[in-house]
């Protein structure tokens, strides 16, 4: 068993998304979306409310389409595990403007806090490294999170952030997918091609 992390997820995400500038953010379903909404809902946040396992690949398609913008995927350990193959796909594709931060509490928080694989020995940073990611990191303290922030905004980095399994109050972002996609594209200035 891996010891649970200690970091407060809201404090972590607030630090990562502080003054996001023109950062493009994709969140995996569940609490990472609530965390991003609590840090400040904005049009350049695209929240998945389902499509479990797809967050990282949405980030890849977006990063390839917008090579001059930074893309950050914020997701949980359960969501990343379901899309684990995409770690190989993204490493092989190579997207220098894409980073992934996994908020790892070792739990399936939406469904009763059942232990995920990362609570029981699976190390997603090691998986990413084995898939070909050249830059991986794991953060256990807020000082390490602060140091990661600059890297997440400048490198193709895969980072695991060990957060506490404690639940935070719900902060629900909009969940109409068509609305979220439309406002994102408008904010990005993407005209209907």
């Amino acid at each position, binding site marked *: 068993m891996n010891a649970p992390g200690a970091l407060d997820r809201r404090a972590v995400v607030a630090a990562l998304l502080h003054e996001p500038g023109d950062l493009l953010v994709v969140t995996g379903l569940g609490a990472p979306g609530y965390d991003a909404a609590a840090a400040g809902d904005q049009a350049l946040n695209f929240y998945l409310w389902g499509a479990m396992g797809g967050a990282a690949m949405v980030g890849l*398609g977006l*990063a390839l389409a917008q090579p001059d913008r930074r893309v950050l995927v914020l997701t949980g350990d359960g969501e990343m595990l379901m899309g684990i193959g995409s770690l190989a796909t993204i490493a092989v594709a190579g997207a220098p403007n894409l980073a992934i931060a996994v908020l790892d509490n070792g739990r399936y928080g939406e469904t009763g806090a059942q232990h995920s694989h990362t609570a029981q020995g699976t190390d997603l940073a090691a998986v990413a490294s084995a898939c070909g990611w050249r830059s991986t990191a794991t953060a256990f303290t807020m000082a390490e999170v602060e140091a990661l922030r600059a890297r997440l905004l400048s490198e193709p980095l895969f980072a695991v952030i060990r957060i506490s399994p404690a639940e935070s109050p719900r902060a629900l972002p909009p969940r109409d997918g068509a609305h979220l996609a439309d406002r994102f*594209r408008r904010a990005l200035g993407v005209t209907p091609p």
Partner: protein
Amino acid sequence: MSQPSWQEAVYAALKAARITQVGYVPDAGHAHLIAAAITDADMRAIVLTTEEEGIALAAGAWLGGQRAALLMQSSGVGNCINMLSLPVNCRMPLLTLVTMRGEWGEFNPWQVPMGRATPAVLTAAGVHVHRADHPGEAAETVAAAAALAFDSAVPVAVLFGQRLIGAKVFVQ
């Protein structure tokens, strides 16, 4: 490998539809398209570990202002079902080209269940299904599917019949 002209025409239809990202899980029936996409400086060919990755890739491309296509075999359609909630729910285009197995002259019984279920499964998941069984109709079907997908913002699949591709022959 021979490169039938219908495949070249299909590639030209993708170019005309301004597709710039191509996600694929390899299939012999898509070999020409995959090779063409890899060597095209204006395209990104992305090899996937499983087909649903390509649904999410296409969604990200659309968010970023590009158009993607997903190439797969009918056996991969089943892998995509839940991920199809993404384009359906977000009213996004999706263009996928599916080479059929498990029908015309199939030798492998393991291909039959998913091949037989493919059109119904796609339809049930909210995908518009077009089909091409003859070389002369392949490219125009892809062009029409691309127009429907990107102009009307809906998911569309084009099934390339096994009769079109040629039944795979198993040689012992």
